[in-house]
Structure formats: C-alpha cells, structure tokens
C-alpha cells in the first residue's frame, strides 16, 4: 500500500445528524458493500445502538476508492457522538488526519457539533464541513452555511449532501482525497501504534483497533504495551472492508485490527502505545488518559437469588466496556448488589438497559450520585461515591462537589427559560455568545449532581426540544452538602438516601416524600414517609392505611376466580421489595430521579 494514497478520517456530528447514514452511503458508493447487504447503519453493530441511533463502540472500515487512475485507501473511523464517550472520541480522532464535520441542514450547529469540532482541532485534523439532509423539506442550507461561516469556515469549502438520496457523495469523496493529507509517519522508525479502541469478541477474545503511526507490525511479532508493560505475540492482523480480511503486516499510516492472546479488555488501555519488544520506540504517543467514572449508582437484582447472574452480566459487559466499574455493595433495604461507575448518564442508561434486555435480569437502580470529596475534622480527605458512605456530620469539616462547565446551544427565544432552569439548579452564569442572529450559546457553571438527575429532560421541555447541551468537568468546589435520608415507617431506607445542597434540602425532601406517596400503595397500616437530615425531619407525608382489599361476593361461581385473583395479588407482591414491614414497588427507587417541580 502506498502511504501517499492513504486517507484516515472520521465523521463527527451531533447526535442524529446523520453520521452513520452518511457512512453507510460512502460504503455503498465505493462498492465496499452492496445495497442488499446494507442494513441501516452498517457500522453500528449493537441492537441498542441501532435503535437509539447512537454509536457506542468504535469501528474502522477500509474503503478502496479509484480516481484519476489511482487506488486510494480510505480508512473511515467511526466515533461515538455522545459527550459521555468524549475520551474515546478524542483517541479515535488522534488516529486520523481529517474529519468530516456533519451538520443537519434542518437543525444547524448543536452542542456536540462544536464540542467535537474543538476536539478535532485539538488533534490538528483537517476539517471538511458537510451540510447533510439537504433533502429535508425544512432544510435551511443558507442559515447553516452562515453558522459555519461564523465559526470560521469558508462558504466554498462546504459540501452539501443528502446521505439519504446520495446527493453530494462523489464530491465528498473527492474532497477527502484532495484535502485530507496522507499520513506522514515513517516506516523505517521503530513501531509506534496507537490503540484507539478494543472490543471483546466471545469467540476471538480481545480485538484491538490500532493506527500505525511509525514502523511496521507483522504477524508473529512480540509487542509491548507501553503503559502496562504487558507483552503479547501477534496472532493475526486484519482489516475491515467491512468484511474482515486478514493481512500479514500493517505499516505506518495504516489502520487495522490486532489479535493477540489478550484475555481481558483491562489489559488493553485505549490511548496506549504499542511497540515491539526487541526494537522499542523511545517515546509513547501523547494524550493517554486513564478513564474515570463520573457517575455512580447502585444496581440490585429485584429477586435476590439473581445476584450471581447480575455479577456475571456485569462481568460480561465489562469485557466489552473497560470504562464500566463495579464492586459489591450491600444495602439494608435492597440486599446484595453492586455499586457501579459510569462515564456519564447515557452510559449508565445503556448499561442498565443491556442488563435487562440482554441478560433478562430485572434490576433496581438507585438514584445516580456523583463523587463527593469530604475533608474531615482530622484533615483527612475522603472520597464519597455513595450517599450511604457519607461520614457523620460531626466529623465533617468541609464538603466539595464536582462542577462542570455546561454549554447550551439554543434559539434565543428560550434564553429566559434556560437561565431559570440553570439558576434553579444552582448554576453560576459565565457568559453568552450569539452564534448568529437567532442562536446563542449560554455558558454556565453547574454542580455535576444537578445535571445527573433530569437536567436534559427539563432543558428539552423548556425549549420545546430545540436546545442541546454539552459539559466538561472543571473541578471540585466547596459546597454545603448534607445527606438526606428517607424514612419509611420510621426506618431509614439506605437505598433512597441522597446527598443534597443544604439550601435545597427542604424543597427536595418535600418533592421526594410526595412522589413516594404517589408510588407506594396503601399498606395494612398507616405509613409515614419522612425526609430527614440527621435526626431532623424536614418533610413528611403519610400513606393512608389500606381500607379495602376484599372480594365482597364469593359464591359457587366465584371460587376459582377468587383464587386466581389472589394468585395475581401474590405475584404483584413478589415484585415488590419488602422494606421493613412496608412493600415498596421498584419504581420508588427511580422516583427520586425524576422528582422535580411539575
């Protein structure tokens, strides 16, 4: 393969702007796959991805493209679009020389468009701006063009496409050849290859996606991971066209897959550098970062005998997803379960959904929590990833919580509503930019805990779905935090405890107890629901005692029916969690999530 004829590029876009469809169209146009083979969104291989329209795991495809009597090799590296996976995005960007910045002609620039663009620019990529979905009746090419001009692109370099109809794809392919530089690594140098993704295949084990920066890797080589110092023998190398095709070697500028006898994804760190054991490079590639979970929650099986199944499910998911962390946790209310850490909320939702869908385990997820830092009176600092681990107030000197910088992109008519929402969530206004006459970017500093609840839903509803947002971690800031407990019938339900800002505790406590009152059915006796800080009760609601649960009439014809009715009640009872003497439906544990003013 001639290095000058290689083009490594990726597609970056806001969610739903048609990235995967555009990739499909490129594959079809270049003949990499036939129309018959083309399932919608070929590159997304997980069901959830295809349904949610989100690319979760990365994928790289090599496309042969003939033009001007030359054969070009285009490596298309697909990236996840969501902010939760921004580190994965940044590593796949680092494997490219160029990026297609795709914008929906009807939506315009959105939060992740810019977030991803800045990441691409940080990686010195050549950007080709693409306005997609120009076939839509509400496409406004002129407006989107203006938005692109406002962020520094020339009108002339913008390519208009419709991935649906195929318009503009040829032009786009020409632009990829002509504008994106070929890779400039050197074959003669010692091997230096970037790991930009890895997946676990149940038949083959760990498959690692690599981009060769310098040197050559061959089947049979002994390689070394520079971060972990682990060494492996290369069993095989391959490329994806998107049909897997084995190759004997990969050289500078090329992208492919590597199989070695790697047992677990934990041994392969995305961002690490691979080199040869007997001829190592002296310097690792820059940008390696250990991924840290941002959001934690407890996951418990509804049926306690499913604990081992849940462990197995989490272990299997982890094979595929090194960023998922979990450790056993015991709750007085929910029994045995796991404290799980996620990159973000979407990541959390996806894992929860996969446990239920792929492993058929009914779970209770407790309300998500961020990681707090607590300075104790003896000057020790402790890290709190679960409200139940919050130390007693008497030994706490100071509490700190993670803050993020949130960028919200919206039509200007919603500025008021957005500011009200952010203010309500303890936001600190930073500034505001006008993207053009009608669209703004509002920057706020917000506690992460305030956006892990239902911020996105609220933002969507107060802007009729027009706003989008993105956030980045900025650090820990001192904050007056308290643990708020929920008591049912006088007993603390640990799984319902949350850490809240003291000034907001009353409001939140009231909302939570009211919500629980709606969800928990009447019991045989009156049940008080209380929210308390320490021993101080701040809100209370009572569930009235059950008054009627009887089949008033029961004669000859009703007997079998009566038994069936009781069997149904029994089954319903089984689905509830018995907490002390109170039967609590699983929704109650999620309810804390969605409590906010109506």
């Amino acid at each position, binding site marked *: 393969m001639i290095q000058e004829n290689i083009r490594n590029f990726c597609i970056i876009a806001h969610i739903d702007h048609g990235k995967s469809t555009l990739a499909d169209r490129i594959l079809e146009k270049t003949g990499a796959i036939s129309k018959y083979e083309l399932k919608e969104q070929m590159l997304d291989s997980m069901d959830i991805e295809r349904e949610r329209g989100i690319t979760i795991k990365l994928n790289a495809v090599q496309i042969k493209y003939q033009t001007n009597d030359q054969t070009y090799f285009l490596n298309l590296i697909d990236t996840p679009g969501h902010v939760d996976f921004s580190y994965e995005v940044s590593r796949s960007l680092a494997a490219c020389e160029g990026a297609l910045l795709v914008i929906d002609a009807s939506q315009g620039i959105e939060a992740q468009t810019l977030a991803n663009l800045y990441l691409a620019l940080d990686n010195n990529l050549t950007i080709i701006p693409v306005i997609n979905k120009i076939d839509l009746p509400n496409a406004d090419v002129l407006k989107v063009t203006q938005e692109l001009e406002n962020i520094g692109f020339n009108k002339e370099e913008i390519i208009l496409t419709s991935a649906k109809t195929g318009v503009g794809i040829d032009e786009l392919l020409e632009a990829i050849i002509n504008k994106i530089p070929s890779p400039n690594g050197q074959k003669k140098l010692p091997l230096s290859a970037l790991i930009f993704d890895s997946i676990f295949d149940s038949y083959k084990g760990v498959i690692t996606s690599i981009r060769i920066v310098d040197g050559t890797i061959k089947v049979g080589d002994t390689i070394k991971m520079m971060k972990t110092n682990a060494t492996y023998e290369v069993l095989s190398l391959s490329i994806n066209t998107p049909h897997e095709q084995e190759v004997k070697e990969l050289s500078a500028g090329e992208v492919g897959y590597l199989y070695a006898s790697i047992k677990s994804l934990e041994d392969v760190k995305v961002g690490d550098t691979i080199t040869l054991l007997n001829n190592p490079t002296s310097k690792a590639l820059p940008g390696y970062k250990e991924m840290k979970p941002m959001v934690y929650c407890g996951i418990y099986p509804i049926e306690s005998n499913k604990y081992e199944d849940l462990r197995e499910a989490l272990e299997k998911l982890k094979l595929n997803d090194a960023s998922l962390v979990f450790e056993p946790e015991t709750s007085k209310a929910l029994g045995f379960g796991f404290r799980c850490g996620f990159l973000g909320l979407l990541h959390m939702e996806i894992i929860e959904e996969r446990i239920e869908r792929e492993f058929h385990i009914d779970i209770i997820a407790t309300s998500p929590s961020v990681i707090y830092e607590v300075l104790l009176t003896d000057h020790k600092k402790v890290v709190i990833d679960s409200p139940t681990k919050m130390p007693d107030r008497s030994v706490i000197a100071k509490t700190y919580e993670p803050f993020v910088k949130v960028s919200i992109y919206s039509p200007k008519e919603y500025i008021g509503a957005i500011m009200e929402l952010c203010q309500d969530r303890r936001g600190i206004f930073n500034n505001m930019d006008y993207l053009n006459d009608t669209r703004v970017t509002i920057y706020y500093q917000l506690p992460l805990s305030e956006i892990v609840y239902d911020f996105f839903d609220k933002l969507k509803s107060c802007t009729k779905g027009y706003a989008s947002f993105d956030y980045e971690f900025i650090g820990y800031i001192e904050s007056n935090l308290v643990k708020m407990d929920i008591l049912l019938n006088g007993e603390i339900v640990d799984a319902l405890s949350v850490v809240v800002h003291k000034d907001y505790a009353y409001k939140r406590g009231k909302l939570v107890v009211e919500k629980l009152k709606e969800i928990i059915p009447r019991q045989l006796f009156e049940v008080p629901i209380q929210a308390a800080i320490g021993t101080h009760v701040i809100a209370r609601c009572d569930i009235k005692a*059950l008054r009627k649960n009887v089949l008033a009439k029961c004669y000859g014809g009703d007997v079998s029916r009566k038994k069936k009715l009781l069997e149904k009640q029994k089954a319903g009872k089984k689905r509830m969690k018995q907490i002390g003497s109170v039967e609590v439906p699983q929704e109650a544990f999620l309810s804390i999530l969605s409590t906010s003013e109506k």
Partner: protein
Amino acid sequence: MIKHTYIHIPFCHSICSYCSFCKILYNHKYVKLYLEALKNELNHIYQGEIQETIYIGGGTPSVLDVNELEQLFKILSKLKKDTFTEYTIECNFSSLNLEKLLLFKKYGINRLSFGIESISDKNLKLLEREEQKNQIVELIKLARKLGFNNINLDLMYAIPKETMSNLDEDLEFIMNLNPEHISTYSCMIEPNTKLYLNKVKAIDEDLDFKMYQKICNKLKKKYIHYEISNFAKEQYQSKHNLGYWKNEEYYGFGVSASSYRNNSRYTNTKSITKYIKGEYDYYHELLDKSDKMSYEMILGLRLLEGVSKKNFFNKFQQDIKDSFDIDSLLEKKLLNESKTHYYINEKDLYISNSILVEFIKE
C-alpha cells in the same frame, strides 16, 4: 358425597348496569331449549345423592312464566331431597305474583331471595333497576302469608355517587321488612358491565369502608354477622352458601354454572347457544391436596367463626399450623386463634385479601 346443587337460570327482563353474571333477555323460544339442555346435563351428571341444599339463581329465575317454572321444577324433582333440604329461588318483585308463589310452595321452595339492592331513586337510575317500594312491601307480606318464613334481601352499597344518607334510607327500609337474612355487597365495577363500559368511577375507598362499617354496626343489633357480606337471624344462615365457604362439594347446572366434584372445579360455558347444543365446554381446574388446603383457608376465613381446626385435620390428615405459616400471621395479629378455629378479626375482614394471599402457594 355431594350435598349441594346450584341451578343457573340466565334470563332477565332487563339488564342492570352493574351485572356481570351470565344472562340474556327473557325469550320463550330460548327458555324451552334451555330447559331441555338443563335436563340433559342434570340427568347426565347427577349421581342420586340426597341434596341438603338446592339454589336456583340467575339471571332472574322468577321471570319464567308459570308453565316454564313448572317444567323447571319437574326437571329438578329428579334431585333427591329430605325434609331439611333448604330450597332457594332468586326472585325480583316485578315478575313475581301469587300464582308463582303458590307454585314455589307446591314444589317445596322454602327460601326466597330478593335483590332489592337499593330503593334510592338516584341509585336505581344508575343501576338501571326498576323496583317499587310499595310492590316490595306488598309481595313480602303476601309471601309471609303463604308461609315463606326464610327470606333474604340483597342490599348494595358504595354505589357510585352514593352518600351516607342514601345508605341510611336503604338500610332502614330493608330492616323494616324484617327479613331473616341480608346479603350486602359493595358495588364492584366489573369488566363487561355497562358501568365499566361507561367508565363510571367507583367511590372512594375510605367512604366504601365507612359504609361497610355502618352496615355492620346497624345490622349487628338484630342479626348475626357470620360472613364478610352476610347477616342472618339465629338458625337462618344460608346453608347453601355455607357449603361454598366450608369448601364442600357441589353440583352446578346451567350455563356458566360452576361445580366442585371429582377433585375438580368446573365452570360451564358462558355461551347460551353452545350450552343449548350440549357443548358444556367447561373450564377445569384439577386440585391436588395443597390446592384444596388453600381453598379451605381462603374460603373458610370469610366466615367470622373462621376455619375449624378439626375439620381441616379430618379432611387432610394434617394440622393447619403444619400446612401454612400461621405463626407469623398470628404474630402480626392478622389472624386469631380460638380453641377450635383460626379466624380473621372482624376489623380486618375488609382487607382480607391481603391476609389470604399468604395461603396461596408460590
């Protein structure tokens, strides 16, 4: 030994809005065919035991004309009786007359059951019933004159939009008639009823309970409260219904009728056309020992006296406390124990399902 028989007569002159029983509008042609089919079913299944109770329910059995009723009684005369047999027929007032009462007398009917339900105009309108206070009073007088000394009246409460004062009025009216037995039910809005289809909302749970409490308190002055929904003067408890609650076997003949025999609970087809063709097509639940023990408890605990320890042992050769987790229920005071019985406290009867689920096997 099967000692009880239920006969279902599915005909009515009009359809009440709350009724979920199997019924059709009265029609001569169908009655004829129906009685034919009933005769076949009875002759085919009945084994010749003496019946302690026979109960003709519906529908409204009294809407049959005199000839049809006579034909019915002739069919039923195949059932062996003795002098103690309790023989009940359900009636409404608008279809009943002297001639029919005399016929009842002739064939040995000794218990009459009337569905009054309510006399408040507001309630009757919602229930789509037409009962006349005067007619009720007169007919009951007449029945008494003819020697019917075991009369049951049904009272419905918790009717949508009903108030406490409506209930007071109904209670007073019924108690003044001085029946031997009163059955009372809260109005349930069940699927396949007009109320359900019209999306009528049930009354508040707390008010429903208050009405039940009021009924119990009032009736207890003159009657024995012996089952969740039933009250009787001394010696006048319904023997037929006690058979159900004591988990005894029974025949059930007619469309939609249930029976308990041969270790099975059967329910006949609910389709009259199928029934007439002799396609009984019944639902069948074969019972093992543990099912029977469950039934013994969930039915018996409807009675205020509860489930007899001795009867249970005689039936199953094991004690109740060795068959169910009785101790935890006793501990929570959801169940009580006398020397001879286990029973649910009167104050908890209205939430008895929450207790009975404990007797359902996983």
